Protein backbone atom coordinates (compact mmCIF):
# COMPACT_ATOMS: atom_id res chain seq x y z
CA UNK A 1 0.00 0.00 0.00
CA UNK A 2 1.18 3.48 -0.73
CA UNK A 3 0.85 7.03 0.56
CA UNK A 4 -1.48 9.51 -1.13
CA UNK A 5 -0.16 12.98 -1.82
CA UNK A 6 -2.81 15.64 -2.46
CA UNK A 7 -1.68 18.18 -5.04
CA UNK A 8 -3.22 21.66 -5.01
CA UNK A 9 -4.67 22.93 -8.30
CA UNK A 10 -1.83 25.40 -8.76
CA UNK A 11 0.74 22.57 -8.97
CA UNK A 12 -1.33 20.21 -11.07
CA UNK A 13 0.28 21.30 -14.32
CA UNK A 14 3.28 19.38 -12.97
CA UNK A 15 1.27 16.21 -12.36
CA UNK A 16 -0.56 16.06 -15.65
CA UNK A 17 -3.66 17.48 -13.99
CA UNK A 18 -3.81 14.83 -11.31
CA UNK A 19 -4.90 15.93 -7.82
CA UNK A 20 -3.86 12.81 -5.94
CA UNK A 21 -0.70 10.82 -6.50
CA UNK A 22 0.18 7.47 -4.92
CA UNK A 23 3.81 7.39 -3.79
CA UNK A 24 6.12 5.13 -1.79
CA UNK A 25 8.36 5.90 1.15
CA UNK A 26 8.82 5.53 4.89
CA UNK A 27 9.28 9.25 5.63
CA UNK A 28 7.91 12.49 4.26
CA UNK A 29 11.26 13.08 2.55
CA UNK A 30 11.12 9.70 0.80
CA UNK A 31 7.52 10.26 -0.17
CA UNK A 32 8.43 13.59 -1.79
CA UNK A 33 11.39 11.97 -3.58
CA UNK A 34 9.02 9.31 -4.89
CA UNK A 35 6.62 12.03 -6.02
CA UNK A 36 9.40 13.86 -7.86
CA UNK A 37 10.49 10.64 -9.54
CA UNK A 38 6.96 10.12 -10.86
CA UNK A 39 6.46 13.78 -11.82
CA UNK A 40 9.89 15.38 -12.25
CA UNK A 41 9.97 19.05 -11.38
CA UNK A 42 7.45 19.09 -8.54
CA UNK A 43 10.14 18.45 -5.92
CA UNK A 44 11.84 21.79 -6.47
CA UNK A 45 8.54 23.59 -5.95
CA UNK A 46 8.29 22.06 -2.47
CA UNK A 47 11.94 21.87 -1.41
CA UNK A 48 14.61 24.55 -1.52
CA UNK A 49 18.15 24.15 -2.89
CA UNK A 50 19.35 22.70 0.41
CA UNK A 51 16.61 20.10 0.41
CA UNK A 52 14.59 21.81 3.16
CA UNK A 53 10.87 22.31 2.99
CA UNK A 54 10.08 25.70 1.46
CA UNK A 55 8.79 28.08 4.12
CA UNK A 56 5.65 29.04 2.22
CA UNK A 57 4.50 25.47 1.67
CA UNK A 58 2.66 23.62 4.41
CA UNK A 59 2.66 19.84 4.34
CA UNK A 60 0.00 18.18 6.45
CA UNK A 61 0.18 14.51 7.33
CA UNK A 62 -3.48 13.75 7.97
CA UNK A 63 -4.30 17.08 9.70
CA UNK A 64 -0.92 17.71 11.37
CA UNK A 65 1.65 20.15 9.99
CA UNK A 66 4.86 18.14 9.49
CA UNK A 67 6.87 21.17 10.69
CA UNK A 68 5.44 20.44 14.14
CA UNK A 69 6.13 16.73 13.85
CA UNK A 70 9.61 15.70 12.71
CA UNK A 71 9.70 17.75 9.53
CA UNK A 72 10.83 15.84 6.46
CA UNK A 73 11.95 12.97 8.71
CA UNK A 74 8.39 12.39 9.92
CA UNK A 75 7.57 8.71 9.43
CA UNK A 76 4.63 7.97 7.16
CA UNK A 77 2.56 4.82 7.06
CA UNK A 78 0.82 3.25 4.11
CA UNK A 79 -2.68 4.60 3.61
CA UNK A 80 -1.90 8.01 5.08
CA UNK A 81 -2.57 11.22 3.16
CA UNK A 82 -0.02 13.97 2.79
CA UNK A 83 -1.62 17.28 1.74
CA UNK A 84 0.40 20.00 0.04
CA UNK A 85 -1.05 23.39 0.98
CA UNK A 86 0.89 26.34 -0.40
CA UNK A 87 0.26 29.82 0.95
CA UNK A 88 -1.96 31.93 -1.27
CA UNK A 89 -2.72 35.60 -0.85
CA UNK A 90 -5.40 36.52 -3.37
CA UNK A 91 -8.46 38.37 -2.26
Amino acid at each position, binding site marked *: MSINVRIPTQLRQLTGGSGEIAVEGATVREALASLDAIHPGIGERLLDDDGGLRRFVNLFLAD*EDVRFLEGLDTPVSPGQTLSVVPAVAGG
Partner: protein
Amino acid sequence: MPSVKDLLAQVKKVIREVDPAEAESRRDDALFLDVREADEYQQGAIPGALHLPRGFLEVQIEGVVPAKDRPIVVYCAGGSRSAFAAKSLQELGYSDVVSMTGGFNRWKDEGRQWATPRVLDAEQRNRYQRHLLLPEVGEAGQQKLLDSKVLLLGAGGLGSPAALYLAAAGVGTIGIVDMDVVDASNLQRQILHNLDSIGDRKVDSAKKALTALNPDVNVVTHDVRIGADNVLNLMEGYDLVVDGTDNFPTRYLVNDASLLTRTPVVHGSIFRFEGQATVFDPYNGPCYRCLVPEPPPPELAPSCAEAGVLGVLPGIIGSIQAVEAIKMLLGIGEPLVGRLLAYDTLAQEIRTFKVRRDPACPACGPDAGEIVIAEYDQLCMPHPKKAPATV
Protein backbone atom coordinates in the same frame (compact mmCIF):
# COMPACT_ATOMS: atom_id res chain seq x y z
CA MET B 1 -62.35 24.84 42.79
CA PRO B 2 -59.41 26.81 44.28
CA SER B 3 -59.12 30.59 43.78
CA VAL B 4 -55.99 32.19 42.35
CA LYS B 5 -55.06 33.07 45.92
CA ASP B 6 -55.32 29.42 46.96
CA LEU B 7 -53.32 28.32 43.95
CA LEU B 8 -50.58 30.84 44.68
CA ALA B 9 -50.46 29.77 48.31
CA GLN B 10 -49.99 26.15 47.22
CA VAL B 11 -47.25 27.12 44.80
CA LYS B 12 -45.42 29.13 47.45
CA LYS B 13 -45.33 26.06 49.68
CA VAL B 14 -43.18 24.16 47.16
CA ILE B 15 -40.83 26.89 46.02
CA ARG B 16 -38.24 28.99 47.79
CA GLU B 17 -38.55 32.77 47.99
CA VAL B 18 -35.94 35.42 48.76
CA ASP B 19 -36.38 39.13 49.43
CA PRO B 20 -34.63 41.70 47.19
CA ALA B 21 -31.78 42.12 49.67
CA GLU B 22 -30.93 38.43 49.58
CA ALA B 23 -31.44 38.33 45.81
CA GLU B 24 -28.99 41.19 45.40
CA SER B 25 -26.37 39.31 47.38
CA ARG B 26 -26.55 36.59 44.74
CA ARG B 27 -26.02 38.83 41.73
CA ASP B 28 -22.53 37.55 41.09
CA ASP B 29 -23.41 33.91 40.80
CA ALA B 30 -27.10 33.70 39.93
CA LEU B 31 -28.88 34.35 36.66
CA PHE B 32 -31.63 36.94 37.09
CA LEU B 33 -34.64 35.94 35.03
CA ASP B 34 -37.24 38.61 34.24
CA VAL B 35 -40.56 36.94 33.35
CA ARG B 36 -42.62 40.10 32.82
CA GLU B 37 -44.12 41.16 29.51
CA ALA B 38 -42.06 43.13 26.98
CA ASP B 39 -43.69 46.49 27.72
CA GLU B 40 -42.99 46.16 31.45
CA TYR B 41 -39.39 45.08 30.85
CA GLN B 42 -38.76 48.03 28.52
CA GLN B 43 -39.74 50.49 31.28
CA GLY B 44 -36.89 49.29 33.46
CA ALA B 45 -35.20 46.08 34.62
CA ILE B 46 -32.37 44.71 36.73
CA PRO B 47 -29.15 45.15 34.70
CA GLY B 48 -27.90 41.90 33.24
CA ALA B 49 -31.22 40.12 33.70
CA LEU B 50 -32.38 37.69 31.06
CA HIS B 51 -35.82 38.60 29.75
CA LEU B 52 -38.08 35.66 29.00
CA PRO B 53 -41.81 36.46 29.31
CA ARG B 54 -43.84 34.00 31.40
CA GLY B 55 -45.73 32.82 28.31
CA PHE B 56 -42.53 31.58 26.61
CA LEU B 57 -40.81 30.35 29.75
CA GLU B 58 -41.35 26.59 29.52
CA VAL B 59 -40.82 26.30 25.77
CA GLN B 60 -37.68 28.44 25.58
CA ILE B 61 -35.82 28.15 28.87
CA GLU B 62 -33.92 24.95 28.02
CA GLY B 63 -32.54 26.55 24.88
CA VAL B 64 -31.42 29.66 26.72
CA VAL B 65 -30.27 28.09 29.99
CA PRO B 66 -29.16 24.54 29.24
CA ALA B 67 -27.41 23.99 32.59
CA LYS B 68 -30.09 22.88 35.02
CA ASP B 69 -27.93 23.41 38.09
CA ARG B 70 -27.40 27.07 37.31
CA PRO B 71 -28.69 29.27 40.18
CA ILE B 72 -31.65 31.34 39.00
CA VAL B 73 -33.44 34.27 40.68
CA VAL B 74 -36.83 34.74 39.01
CA TYR B 75 -38.63 38.05 39.28
CA CYS B 76 -41.76 39.69 37.91
CA ALA B 77 -43.46 42.94 38.93
CA GLY B 78 -44.81 41.89 42.32
CA GLY B 79 -43.71 38.33 43.06
CA SER B 80 -46.74 36.25 41.95
CA ARG B 81 -45.93 35.41 38.36
CA SER B 82 -42.34 34.68 39.38
CA ALA B 83 -43.64 32.20 41.96
CA PHE B 84 -45.55 30.29 39.28
CA ALA B 85 -42.51 30.53 37.01
CA ALA B 86 -40.21 29.16 39.74
CA LYS B 87 -42.50 26.16 40.19
CA SER B 88 -42.45 25.46 36.44
CA LEU B 89 -38.65 25.70 36.38
CA GLN B 90 -38.42 23.28 39.30
CA GLU B 91 -40.69 20.87 37.46
CA LEU B 92 -38.40 21.15 34.44
CA GLY B 93 -35.51 20.03 36.63
CA TYR B 94 -33.83 23.34 37.48
CA SER B 95 -32.41 22.59 40.89
CA ASP B 96 -31.54 26.03 42.31
CA VAL B 97 -34.43 28.40 41.63
CA VAL B 98 -35.76 31.15 43.90
CA SER B 99 -38.56 33.67 43.37
CA MET B 100 -37.98 37.27 44.47
CA THR B 101 -40.71 38.55 46.79
CA GLY B 102 -42.17 41.95 45.95
CA GLY B 103 -40.69 41.72 42.45
CA PHE B 104 -39.13 44.54 40.50
CA ASN B 105 -41.43 47.13 42.12
CA ARG B 106 -40.04 46.43 45.57
CA TRP B 107 -36.48 46.17 44.22
CA LYS B 108 -36.87 49.64 42.71
CA ASP B 109 -38.61 51.07 45.81
CA GLU B 110 -35.71 49.91 47.94
CA GLY B 111 -33.37 51.97 45.79
CA ARG B 112 -31.53 49.06 44.24
CA GLN B 113 -29.81 49.36 40.89
CA TRP B 114 -31.99 49.23 37.78
CA ALA B 115 -31.80 50.53 34.23
CA THR B 116 -33.88 50.98 31.14
CA PRO B 117 -32.78 48.14 28.89
CA ARG B 118 -31.80 48.86 25.32
CA VAL B 119 -34.35 47.12 23.19
CA LEU B 120 -34.73 46.53 19.50
CA ASP B 121 -37.40 48.64 17.86
CA ALA B 122 -40.27 47.03 15.96
CA GLU B 123 -38.47 47.26 12.61
CA GLN B 124 -35.30 45.71 14.02
CA ARG B 125 -37.33 43.01 15.72
CA ASN B 126 -38.77 42.10 12.35
CA ARG B 127 -35.49 42.42 10.42
CA TYR B 128 -33.51 40.26 12.84
CA GLN B 129 -36.36 37.87 13.69
CA ARG B 130 -34.49 34.79 12.43
CA HIS B 131 -31.53 35.69 14.67
CA LEU B 132 -33.78 36.34 17.66
CA LEU B 133 -35.17 32.83 17.30
CA LEU B 134 -31.69 31.38 17.79
CA PRO B 135 -31.00 31.08 21.53
CA GLU B 136 -27.25 31.43 20.77
CA VAL B 137 -27.93 34.90 19.33
CA GLY B 138 -31.19 36.18 20.77
CA GLU B 139 -31.83 39.81 21.66
CA ALA B 140 -28.63 40.16 23.70
CA GLY B 141 -26.54 38.74 20.86
CA GLN B 142 -28.23 40.96 18.31
CA GLN B 143 -27.51 43.99 20.47
CA LYS B 144 -23.92 42.84 20.68
CA LEU B 145 -23.71 42.69 16.87
CA LEU B 146 -25.25 46.15 16.61
CA ASP B 147 -22.58 47.41 19.02
CA SER B 148 -19.75 45.66 17.13
CA LYS B 149 -17.18 47.29 14.91
CA VAL B 150 -15.58 45.30 12.11
CA LEU B 151 -12.87 46.56 9.77
CA LEU B 152 -12.89 45.04 6.28
CA LEU B 153 -9.60 45.22 4.44
CA GLY B 154 -10.58 45.24 0.79
CA ALA B 155 -13.96 45.67 -0.87
CA GLY B 156 -13.15 43.15 -3.57
CA GLY B 157 -13.75 39.44 -4.03
CA LEU B 158 -13.61 38.43 -0.36
CA GLY B 159 -14.74 41.76 1.06
CA SER B 160 -17.93 41.83 -1.02
CA PRO B 161 -19.75 38.81 0.43
CA ALA B 162 -18.26 39.40 3.88
CA ALA B 163 -19.50 43.00 3.91
CA LEU B 164 -22.95 42.12 2.61
CA TYR B 165 -23.52 39.37 5.18
CA LEU B 166 -22.10 41.36 8.09
CA ALA B 167 -24.30 44.31 7.15
CA ALA B 168 -27.32 42.06 6.77
CA ALA B 169 -26.55 40.53 10.18
CA GLY B 170 -26.64 43.99 11.74
CA VAL B 171 -22.97 44.54 12.60
CA GLY B 172 -23.36 48.16 13.64
CA THR B 173 -20.13 49.64 12.35
CA ILE B 174 -18.37 48.39 9.25
CA GLY B 175 -15.14 50.10 8.23
CA ILE B 176 -13.97 49.51 4.68
CA VAL B 177 -10.44 50.10 3.43
CA ASP B 178 -9.88 50.10 -0.33
CA MET B 179 -8.16 52.53 -2.63
CA ASP B 180 -9.39 51.03 -5.89
CA VAL B 181 -12.13 52.11 -8.28
CA VAL B 182 -14.73 49.73 -9.67
CA ASP B 183 -13.78 48.20 -13.00
CA ALA B 184 -16.00 46.09 -15.26
CA SER B 185 -13.62 43.14 -14.79
CA ASN B 186 -14.41 43.18 -11.03
CA LEU B 187 -18.07 42.29 -11.53
CA GLN B 188 -17.34 38.61 -12.25
CA ARG B 189 -16.94 38.16 -8.46
CA GLN B 190 -17.18 41.46 -6.52
CA ILE B 191 -20.91 41.40 -5.86
CA LEU B 192 -20.95 44.61 -3.82
CA HIS B 193 -20.58 46.56 -7.05
CA ASN B 194 -22.63 46.79 -10.24
CA LEU B 195 -22.66 48.38 -13.69
CA ASP B 196 -23.77 51.72 -12.28
CA SER B 197 -20.75 51.92 -9.97
CA ILE B 198 -18.07 51.37 -12.63
CA GLY B 199 -15.54 54.16 -12.23
CA ASP B 200 -16.68 54.97 -8.67
CA ARG B 201 -14.41 54.53 -5.68
CA LYS B 202 -14.98 51.03 -4.29
CA VAL B 203 -15.54 52.37 -0.78
CA ASP B 204 -18.34 54.63 -2.05
CA SER B 205 -19.93 51.86 -4.08
CA ALA B 206 -19.71 49.57 -1.03
CA LYS B 207 -21.24 52.16 1.27
CA LYS B 208 -24.13 52.67 -1.12
CA ALA B 209 -24.83 48.94 -1.38
CA LEU B 210 -24.55 48.28 2.36
CA THR B 211 -26.65 51.26 3.41
CA ALA B 212 -29.34 50.24 0.94
CA LEU B 213 -29.31 46.77 2.50
CA ASN B 214 -29.40 47.80 6.15
CA PRO B 215 -29.76 51.37 7.42
CA ASP B 216 -28.75 50.22 10.94
CA VAL B 217 -25.15 49.94 9.71
CA ASN B 218 -22.74 52.83 9.97
CA VAL B 219 -20.32 52.38 7.06
CA VAL B 220 -16.99 54.14 7.57
CA THR B 221 -14.93 54.48 4.39
CA HIS B 222 -11.16 54.69 4.11
CA ASP B 223 -10.05 55.38 0.54
CA VAL B 224 -6.38 54.67 1.26
CA ARG B 225 -3.73 52.11 0.55
CA ILE B 226 -2.96 50.10 3.70
CA GLY B 227 0.57 50.91 4.70
CA ALA B 228 2.92 51.02 7.64
CA ASP B 229 1.97 54.67 8.13
CA ASN B 230 -1.73 54.04 8.67
CA VAL B 231 -2.39 50.40 9.57
CA LEU B 232 -2.38 50.96 13.35
CA ASN B 233 -4.68 53.98 13.09
CA LEU B 234 -7.02 52.10 10.79
CA MET B 235 -7.37 49.18 13.22
CA GLU B 236 -7.87 51.37 16.26
CA GLY B 237 -11.32 51.09 17.77
CA TYR B 238 -12.33 47.98 15.83
CA ASP B 239 -13.21 44.69 17.50
CA LEU B 240 -12.12 42.57 14.59
CA VAL B 241 -10.46 42.69 11.18
CA VAL B 242 -11.66 40.75 8.14
CA ASP B 243 -8.64 40.39 5.89
CA GLY B 244 -9.52 40.34 2.21
CA THR B 245 -6.29 41.89 0.95
CA ASP B 246 -4.58 40.53 -2.13
CA ASN B 247 -0.83 40.35 -1.55
CA PHE B 248 1.69 38.88 0.87
CA PRO B 249 3.42 42.06 2.14
CA THR B 250 0.05 43.51 3.22
CA ARG B 251 -0.91 40.27 4.92
CA TYR B 252 2.27 40.37 7.03
CA LEU B 253 1.72 44.04 7.78
CA VAL B 254 -1.84 43.31 8.92
CA ASN B 255 -0.58 40.41 11.05
CA ASP B 256 2.03 42.46 12.85
CA ALA B 257 -0.41 45.33 13.47
CA SER B 258 -3.01 42.88 14.77
CA LEU B 259 -0.51 41.54 17.32
CA LEU B 260 0.35 45.05 18.46
CA THR B 261 -3.28 46.10 18.78
CA ARG B 262 -4.51 42.67 19.96
CA THR B 263 -7.13 42.69 17.21
CA PRO B 264 -8.27 39.28 15.94
CA VAL B 265 -7.99 38.79 12.17
CA VAL B 266 -10.39 36.63 10.20
CA HIS B 267 -8.20 35.57 7.31
CA GLY B 268 -9.33 34.54 3.85
CA SER B 269 -7.23 34.00 0.76
CA ILE B 270 -7.95 32.63 -2.69
CA PHE B 271 -6.10 31.51 -5.77
CA ARG B 272 -7.65 30.17 -8.98
CA PHE B 273 -9.86 27.28 -7.74
CA GLU B 274 -8.80 27.01 -4.09
CA GLY B 275 -9.24 29.11 -1.02
CA GLN B 276 -8.24 29.15 2.63
CA ALA B 277 -9.70 30.64 5.78
CA THR B 278 -8.59 30.77 9.38
CA VAL B 279 -8.75 33.04 12.42
CA PHE B 280 -5.67 34.62 13.96
CA ASP B 281 -6.48 35.48 17.57
CA PRO B 282 -3.39 37.32 18.84
CA TYR B 283 -1.45 35.32 21.42
CA ASN B 284 -4.40 32.94 21.93
CA GLY B 285 -3.60 31.06 18.76
CA PRO B 286 -1.08 31.02 15.93
CA CYS B 287 -0.44 34.16 13.91
CA TYR B 288 0.04 34.47 10.16
CA ARG B 289 3.80 34.13 10.55
CA CYS B 290 3.35 30.82 12.44
CA LEU B 291 1.42 29.50 9.44
CA VAL B 292 3.47 31.10 6.65
CA PRO B 293 6.95 31.94 7.98
CA GLU B 294 8.03 33.37 4.62
CA PRO B 295 6.15 34.44 1.52
CA PRO B 296 6.71 32.69 -1.79
CA PRO B 297 8.87 34.51 -4.32
CA PRO B 298 6.73 36.53 -6.76
CA GLU B 299 7.38 34.12 -9.63
CA LEU B 300 5.73 31.33 -7.61
CA ALA B 301 2.90 33.51 -6.35
CA PRO B 302 1.18 35.23 -9.23
CA SER B 303 -1.79 37.35 -8.25
CA CYS B 304 -5.38 36.57 -9.19
CA ALA B 305 -5.09 39.36 -11.76
CA GLU B 306 -2.38 37.33 -13.46
CA ALA B 307 -3.53 33.79 -12.78
CA GLY B 308 -7.32 34.10 -12.66
CA VAL B 309 -9.83 33.05 -10.04
CA LEU B 310 -13.17 31.29 -10.21
CA GLY B 311 -15.67 34.05 -9.46
CA VAL B 312 -17.76 32.08 -6.96
CA LEU B 313 -14.74 31.04 -4.88
CA PRO B 314 -14.37 34.35 -2.99
CA GLY B 315 -18.14 34.18 -2.46
CA ILE B 316 -17.65 31.00 -0.43
CA ILE B 317 -14.48 32.03 1.39
CA GLY B 318 -15.75 35.56 2.11
CA SER B 319 -18.96 34.07 3.50
CA ILE B 320 -16.95 31.72 5.72
CA GLN B 321 -15.09 34.82 6.97
CA ALA B 322 -18.44 36.45 7.78
CA VAL B 323 -19.49 33.35 9.74
CA GLU B 324 -16.22 33.37 11.69
CA ALA B 325 -16.48 37.11 12.37
CA ILE B 326 -19.98 36.71 13.81
CA LYS B 327 -18.91 33.72 15.93
CA MET B 328 -15.99 35.71 17.31
CA LEU B 329 -18.17 38.75 18.05
CA LEU B 330 -20.82 36.66 19.79
CA GLY B 331 -18.40 34.27 21.46
CA ILE B 332 -20.23 31.21 20.17
CA GLY B 333 -19.17 27.93 18.59
CA GLU B 334 -15.64 26.91 17.71
CA PRO B 335 -13.94 29.61 15.64
CA LEU B 336 -11.18 28.61 13.22
CA VAL B 337 -8.48 29.61 15.72
CA GLY B 338 -5.62 27.15 15.23
CA ARG B 339 -7.29 25.54 12.25
CA LEU B 340 -6.81 26.19 8.55
CA LEU B 341 -9.83 25.52 6.38
CA ALA B 342 -8.93 24.69 2.80
CA TYR B 343 -11.61 24.61 0.12
CA ASP B 344 -11.11 23.04 -3.31
CA THR B 345 -13.89 23.98 -5.71
CA LEU B 346 -12.92 21.43 -8.36
CA ALA B 347 -12.96 18.48 -5.97
CA GLN B 348 -15.78 20.17 -4.03
CA GLU B 349 -14.01 19.32 -0.80
CA ILE B 350 -13.39 21.21 2.41
CA ARG B 351 -10.63 20.08 4.75
CA THR B 352 -9.34 21.52 7.99
CA PHE B 353 -5.77 21.23 9.20
CA LYS B 354 -4.26 22.01 12.58
CA VAL B 355 -2.16 25.16 12.83
CA ARG B 356 0.04 25.59 15.87
CA ARG B 357 1.77 28.53 17.47
CA ASP B 358 5.37 28.37 16.40
CA PRO B 359 7.64 28.68 19.46
CA ALA B 360 10.23 30.23 17.14
CA CYS B 361 7.79 32.70 15.58
CA PRO B 362 9.63 36.00 15.08
CA ALA B 363 6.41 37.94 15.70
CA CYS B 364 4.39 36.18 18.43
CA GLY B 365 6.82 33.65 19.89
CA PRO B 366 8.15 33.96 23.45
CA ASP B 367 11.51 35.19 22.18
CA ALA B 368 10.11 37.58 19.62
CA GLY B 369 11.32 41.12 20.01
CA GLU B 370 8.99 44.05 20.09
CA ILE B 371 7.16 44.49 16.83
CA VAL B 372 7.82 47.55 14.74
CA ILE B 373 5.46 48.39 11.95
CA ALA B 374 7.27 49.26 8.74
CA GLU B 375 6.85 48.64 5.03
CA TYR B 376 7.86 45.13 4.06
CA ASP B 377 10.08 44.12 1.24
CA GLN B 378 9.73 40.94 -0.74
CA LEU B 379 10.82 38.80 2.21
CA CYS B 380 8.30 40.38 4.59
CA MET B 381 10.50 39.75 7.62
CA PRO B 382 9.62 41.64 10.80
CA HIS B 383 11.70 44.69 11.45
CA PRO B 384 13.90 44.61 14.53
CA LYS B 385 13.19 47.26 17.07
CA LYS B 386 15.75 50.01 17.24
CA ALA B 387 16.09 51.18 20.82
CA PRO B 388 14.87 53.56 22.04
CA ALA B 389 12.34 53.75 19.25
CA THR B 390 8.68 54.46 19.68
CA VAL B 391 5.85 52.69 17.94
